[in-house]
């Protein structure tokens, strides 16, 4: 059972990865810039979707790191670096947010003082929903996430050489501080970026809704990367499909959690039937948006549920690859469904435009590039972690 000697040979990822990432990013950026000239409003809305998707991957991964420390999980230690590499996109958010900040007026109705002045509801919400406080919030949140990412990563990296157990203890304490901060910050991001596009609407469950989707996206990214790396022999050979099973089970759990939360949000609003809440769902039932709404149930709940429900499916690398790509798309679809019907030209129904496809390309390219860059610099396995051996020995 014991591998007495922990042998790990560093291997660089193939150069084709960086080429793929670079190509996607450059194509995405060129088309994205063109999109801003062709249809400015639509480009801004799509940029927002891609941005919230990046938040999901980065901050969701950071949450998974904290989760591993705080629950004392062993099985995920051999793949923690994969999670950490995804979290490495967090500091970039401070740059990525800038184009959005220049277009606050385009996105947010509440940012126009003259509109707020004649609207009693917006007037009452003005102490929270105003441009100055919004920008402060945005940078405080990104700052907090980056700070925690920096500390987690620094301790984890240091452990590779020092093998100091105290660093794990420090990270456990950091996690205990981070988890409540995460709950608070992810709720605020959901309110700021997603809910305030329609400032008259409110849902008290929106933070949990975004959180569920965020964890699904981060887990799907981690699962996809883990399966691919494992298949090509970049991870430790002692890793078995039992490790994959844990990822599959977590994915399944969060798919259920998302379904539960999404339905709770819908049912409470449907039951109370208050016009100030229902109009938001009515918008998503206008014209062809109705198909999108039905599609959301199928894409983000039914298909993953049926795919992952059996025990063997949760550790089948082929099914996991399929479902993690599917779920990454599903999270993007969810955000798209959330944001796009708020665009005035699309409020009556969806009409296709190439602009909708551009920004995800750039986002995926960027994530691959960041991942590859980190993989070049760091070990793919936290070789100094005291729990690594137990993690490798993990069996169902």
């Amino acid at each position, binding site marked *: *059972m014991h591998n007495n000697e922990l042998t790990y040979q560093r291997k660089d990822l193939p150069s084709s990865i960086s080429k793929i990432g670079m190509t996607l990013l450059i194509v995405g950026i060129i088309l994205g810039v063109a999109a801003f000239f062709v249809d400015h409003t639509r480009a801004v809305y799509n940029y927002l979707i891609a941005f919230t998707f990046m938040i999901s991957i980065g901050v969701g991964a950071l949450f998974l790191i904290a989760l591993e420390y705080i629950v004392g999980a062993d099985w995920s230690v051999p793949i923690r670096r994969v999670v950490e590499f995804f979290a490495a996109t967090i500091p970039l958010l401070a740059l990525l947010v800038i184009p959005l900040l220049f277009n606050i007026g385009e996105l947010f109705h509440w940012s126009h003082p003259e509109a707020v002045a004649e609207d009693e509801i917006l007037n009452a919400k003005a102490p929270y929903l105003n441009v100055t406080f919004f920008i402060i919030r945005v940078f405080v949140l990104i700052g907090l996430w980056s700070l925690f990412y920096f500390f987690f990563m620094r301790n984890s990296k240091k452990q590779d050489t020092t093998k100091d157990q105290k660093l794990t203890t420090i990270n456990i304490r950091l996690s205990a501080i981070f988890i409540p901060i995460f709950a608070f910050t992810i709720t605020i991001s959901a309110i700021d970026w997603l809910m305030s596009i329609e400032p008259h609407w409110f849902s008290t469950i929106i933070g949990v809704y975004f959180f569920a989707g965020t964890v699904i996206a981060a887990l799907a990214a981690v699962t996809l990367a883990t399966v691919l790396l494992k298949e090509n022999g970049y991870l430790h050979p002692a890793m078995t499909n039992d490790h994959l099973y844990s990822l599959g089970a977590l994915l399944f759990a969060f798919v259920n959690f998302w379904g539960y939360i999404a*339905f709770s949000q*819908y049912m409470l609003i*449907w*039951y109370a039937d208050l016009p100030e809440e229902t109009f938001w769902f009515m918008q998503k039932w206008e014209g062809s948006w109705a198909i999108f709404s039905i599609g959301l149930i199928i894409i983000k709940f039914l298909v993953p549920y049926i795919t992952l429900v059996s025990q063997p499916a949760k550790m089948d690398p082929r099914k996991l690859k399929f479902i993690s790509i599917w779920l990454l798309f599903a999270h993007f679809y969810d955000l798209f469904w959330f944001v796009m019907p708020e665009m005035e030209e699309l409020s009556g129904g969806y009409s296709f435009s190439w602009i909708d496809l551009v920004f995800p390309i750039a986002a995926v390219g960027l994530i691959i590039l960041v991942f590859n860059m980190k993989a070049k610099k760091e070990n793919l396995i936290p070789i100094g972690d005291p729990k690594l051996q137990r993690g490798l020995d993990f*069996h*169902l």
Partner: protein
Amino acid sequence: MTDKKIFGVTALFNDPNAIIAAARKVASSGFTKWDVNSPYPIHGIDKAMKMKPSKLGIVTLIFGLSGAALALILMWWTMSVDYPMIIGGKPYFSLPAFIPVTFEITVIMATLSTVVAMFAFFFGLPRNSHALHDTDYMKKVSRDHYGIVIEATDPNFDEKATLQFLKDLKPLSTEIIYHSEKETYPIFEPRFIGLLLGVAVVVSIGTYLMLNKLMYIVPFDWMDKQAKVIPQSGSEFFADGRGMRLPVEGTVAKGFIPYPFEGQTNPTEVLSNPYFPTKESLELGERKFLTYCSPCHGNYGDGDSRLAGQFPNPPTLHSDRARSFSDGMIYHIITVGQNVMPSYASQVTRDERWAIVNYIRALQRAKNATDSDLNFVKAE
């Protein structure tokens, strides 16, 4: 010693890795009737023992699905077919409202069926004693050791060879387990029965006190004493002191048609019977007459009350005066009352009153039949 029946041989280990290695060897040497005992589930033991995946999941799936179907059928039948009720302005069959119940029933059916199936198929109920019970071996594997037991019913079992096989695995110790000489049934022990009775008594007393006493003690009486108006009671909240509110002046209840002839003695000219004495009308009239009229007027309208003097007897409905009443007059009397007879407007609806009128007419005709009427009967 020799007449004792062997149950099996056991071996003890004190390391989870050792037990996994040992289990692997036992599994690959062809034994089928054997088991591993440990104080907690050991990761990887299923694979080491070469166990087939549990079939329990199938039970869970089947019962979970039938739970979902059952809940939906129940709610569909009760809420939209058998007794349709409008709740919160929602359609009779409103799926979002049914989902939580469906979810709960699915979960409860799936979990309960899993537990029951586990007891029935895997725990070997109703057997309540086992040769391993109360052995030194069982006490150790329940605490801090890990054990393997190979049963004597295994086709490859041979007392000496199997014992040697286990010894070759280098365990801490090995032991031969015998069936106990007499079967004991610990559930019939007075101590155990006494414990059950004691628990029953304590739970009963506790429940009784909780539901009958505790609920009426401050501060646990919050359910009993609520700040709300109880029907038929007064309220200081309203100026007139009534708890229940009167309808707004000039409003009419849904389905109610005001009666405009109250206080008049004979509105017969304007009130005419809108119903023919059809079979349905007469049957409805009979039912309502027997329910509401017959206690005083008698089953056939003879004025022979069944109330035995508790209430003054009304005159017969077959007098010339009563027979000369127009339909409208009888309807009027039922609606507003006459002499000591009260109004029946709140008990009998408008259509039912006309049906009663038709029925009284039939009674009067029957009581005063002529010979020529017999011709109709004969013709039929």
